[in-house]
C-alpha cells in the first residue's frame, strides 16, 4: 500500500476521532467564543471602544484557543502507544506529521475562521474589516497549527509540558498576532491591509516548509 493512502487514512482517522470527541473539539471553539464574548462584559460596552479593541480581542482569543488545543496534537497518541505505531508505520514520519497538523487545523483552526465574522458582527465591525479579519485568520491559523506542532512535539512527555509549549510557541506566535490584528486595525484606519496580510502569508509559506521537519526531528528524539 503506497504512502499516500496511509496518509489519507491517518487524516481520516484523526477527523473521525475528533468527531467522536466532538465535545472536546467544541470546547476549543466554545473557548474562542467565550473569551471573545466575555470581554464586552468585563470591559463595559461602549461601541466605540469595543470596535477599537475588537481585532485584538478576537485574534488573542484565537491564539489562546489554538494554544490550548495543542495538547491534543500528540499527547493522547503518546500515552496510549499509538504514536509508537505511527513511527513504525512504513510512511516517512514527516508525512504523518503533516497529516496530523492538517487535521489539527481543520479541527481547531478552520472553525475559528468560520466563526470570526459572526463575532465581528457582535463587536459591530464594518463589512470590510470583517473581511480582512477573516482573511487574516485564514492565513494566520495554519501558522499557529504548524508552529504549534513543533512545540507539542518538543515537550512530548516532558514534565509539565504545558507551560513549556507556551514558552516555546508564544514568541513565534506574537508576530502573527501583531501583523494579523494589525492588518485589521490598519484597514479600519483606512490604511491598506495588504502589508500585514502579505507578511502573515509569508510566515505561512515559511512555516509550512520548515515546521514539519523540526517537528519530525523533535518527535524522533522524544520517543527514543
Amino acid at each position, binding site marked *: 500500500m503506497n504512502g499516500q493512502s496511509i496518509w489519507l487514512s491517518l487524516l481520516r*482517522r484523526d477527523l*473521525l476521532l475528533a468527531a467522536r470527541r466532538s465535545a472536546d473539539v467544541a470546547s476549543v471553539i466554545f473557548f474562542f467564543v467565550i473569551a471573545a464574548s466575555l470581554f464586552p462584559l468585563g470591559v463595559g460596552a461602549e461601541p466605540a471602544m469595543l470596535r477599537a479593541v475588537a481585532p485584538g480581542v478576537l485574534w488573542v482569543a484565537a491564539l489562546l484557543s489554538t494554544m490550548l488545543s495543542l495538547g491534543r496534537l500528540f499527547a493522547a497518541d503518546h500515552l496510549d502507544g499509538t504514536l509508537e*505505531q505511527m*513511527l513504525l508505520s512504513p510512511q516517512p514520519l514527516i508525512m504523518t506529521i503533516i497529516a496530523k497538523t492538517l487535521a489539527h487545523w481543520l479541527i481547531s483552526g478552520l472553525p475559528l475562521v468560520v466563526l470570526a465574522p459572526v463575532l465581528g458582527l457582535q463587536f459591530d465591525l464594518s463589512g470590510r474589516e470583517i473581511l480582512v479579519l477573516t482573511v487574516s485568520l485564514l492565513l494566520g491559523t495554519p501558522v499557529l497549527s504548524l508552529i504549534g506542532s513543533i512545540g507539542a512535539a518538543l515537550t512530548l512527555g516532558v514534565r509539565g509540558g504545558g507551560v513549556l509549549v507556551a514558552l516555546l510557541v508564544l514568541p513565534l506566535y506574537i508576530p502573527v498576532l501583531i501583523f494579523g490584528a494589525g492588518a485589521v486595525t490598519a484597514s479600519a484606519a483606512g490604511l491598506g491591509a495588504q502589508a500585514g496580510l502579505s507578511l502573515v502569508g509569508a510566515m505561512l509559506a515559511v512555516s509550512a516548509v520548515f515546521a514539519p521537519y523540526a517537528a519530525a526531528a523533535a518527535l524522533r528524539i522524544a520517543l527514543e
Partner: protein
Amino acid sequence: MLAAHDLACERGGRALFRNLNFTLERGVLLHIKGANGSGKTSLLRMLCGLTPPASGRITWDDEDIRGLRENYAAQITYIGHHPAVKDELSALENLRVAQALAGQPVTVAQAQAALAAVGLQGRANLPLRVLSQGQRRRVALARLWLSHAVLWILDEPFNALDVEAAALLERHIETHLGAGGMVVLTTHQQPGIASQRMHIVQLAA
C-alpha cells in the same frame, strides 16, 4: 534474519544489560525472560528501532536497522504494553485504523473476521471504553490475525487474557512460526510453544 551484536542498554545512568548477542531465524520464537525491571521492554523497543541502543548494533538480513527505517518497519508488527487503542472508537474502527497505519488496510469483513477469531463477536461495534481489560487486549491482538509482517514483537501479550484466549494466541503464534514467521516476546508465564521452536534469552536482573 534478525541479529543483535553486543547490545547494551542504559537507563538513568544504570546499565541494564551489555554484550547481548543473539540471532533469530525464520520459524523461531525468541522468549525474552527476566525479572521485573531487567530491561525486557527496553530491549523490545530497541528491536523495533524506537530506541537507539547505548552501544552495539541490530541487523536485519545483515543491514543495520537504523539505515532501513521504513523498510524495516514494514517487516514488523509491534504490540506493546500499551494496547494503542482509542476509547472513543469501536473495536472494529480501532482495528481498521491500526492496520491502515501499518500500511495493511483491511475491509470491514476482514476486520470482523479477525475480531470473531479473538472471540469478540457481537462486541465489534462497542466503543472500547466499555470493554473489559481482557477484551481491550484482545482488540489489540486481533491485529496479528491480519498482519502480513514477518516479525512479531509482543510485550507480555498474555497479560489480562483468560486461559482460553491465551491458548488461542499460542496456537496462532505457532501457525505463524510454521509459516516461516518470527516472534520475539516477553512473558512471565511459560508460553505453550513447542520447545524446539523456542529460543530463550535470559536477562539478568
